[in-house]
């Protein structure tokens, strides 16, 4: 069994801080009422980053045979590259729906575990949802992602792909 090596702790932490700052900057610019715009902006950012990350990370990996192969790669190597851990659970209906569960999502880690900020938590997932759509689109898979935070710091992403 191979352990996932903790690499690049500094850049990981910097990314987390940057993410928080991007969030807070966008909320300030758009105003508290325009949550929709903030979420769209974050998803767009995430999408471009996801494309680039996928280009880099998939470079030395053998070709994916099926969409499931691509999803597994997303949950393992890609997620590890971004968040230093793998996705905890992947559910699929073996056709076009996939659900990624992360029980200790890195970008939610620093928020309080109480339900105090539950309503703001989707904002913390918007960037990552864009990451997923961007990464998949670069593999030629069109997708739609919804996400939820049932209880901090757990979260899940529901991915519907176009076959």
């Amino acid at each position: 069994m191979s352990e996932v090596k903790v690499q690049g702790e500094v850049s990981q932490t910097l990314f987390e801080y940057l993410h928080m700052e991007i969030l807070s900057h966008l909320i300030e610019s758009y105003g508290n009422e325009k949550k929709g715009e903030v979420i769209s902006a974050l998803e767009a950012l995430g999408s471009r980053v996801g494309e680039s990350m996928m280009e880099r990370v998939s470079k030395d990996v053998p070709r994916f045979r099926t969409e499931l192969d691509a999803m597994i790669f997303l949950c393992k190597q890609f997620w590890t590259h971004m968040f230093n851990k793998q996705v905890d659970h992947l559910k699929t209906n073996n056709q076009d729906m996939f659900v990624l569960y992360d029980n200790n999502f890195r970008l939610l880690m620093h928020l309080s575990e109480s339900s105090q900020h539950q309503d703001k938590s989707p904002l913390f997932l918007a960037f990552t949802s864009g990451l997923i759509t961007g990464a998949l689109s670069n593999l030629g898979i069109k997708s739609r992602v919804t996400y939820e935070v049932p209880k901090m710091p757990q979260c899940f992403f529901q991915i519907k792909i176009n076959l």
Partner: protein
Amino acid sequence: VAILKMAVVCVSVISKENFPLYLRTVSTYIENDMGFHHIVHTAIDVIEEKISSVGTGRAGTDFREHYLGPLYPSEQYKIYGYATNTRTKFIIITENTTSQSRDTEINQFFKKLHQAYADMFCNPFYTPDTEITSKRFDRSVTDIFKDSESKLSKNEHHGNKN
């Protein structure tokens, strides 16, 4: 026995939607530029066929490999293909002066090209699926042209010694 290496004369990058993002011909072959466009265009069909043959177990095609080897026979040139996981395709055309297999060497060139492409793609000012104008990418391709040429002249020299 020194293996005669052949010079790379043309390098091309094709997007996942199959239109050309980049095509560069070495300066000594610049008049054949139009011809290379045509060759690359035909090569795309061959690549598509190779990468879509999932699990048909065709001999000699390891589906998991990015490197696709020589694509189709031509009198003057050898045409090699490479398809990434992101469906971007690279094509390298070389002179056809010997029938020796150069797979490892050409694969090395493709890997360099892939690395240069990934670096260029991560540039936030680059819009995906548009023409590649990066000077740094140009330099990587120039290096590939030079590398393949220098090996050619080195081995000619050794050939003369023998």
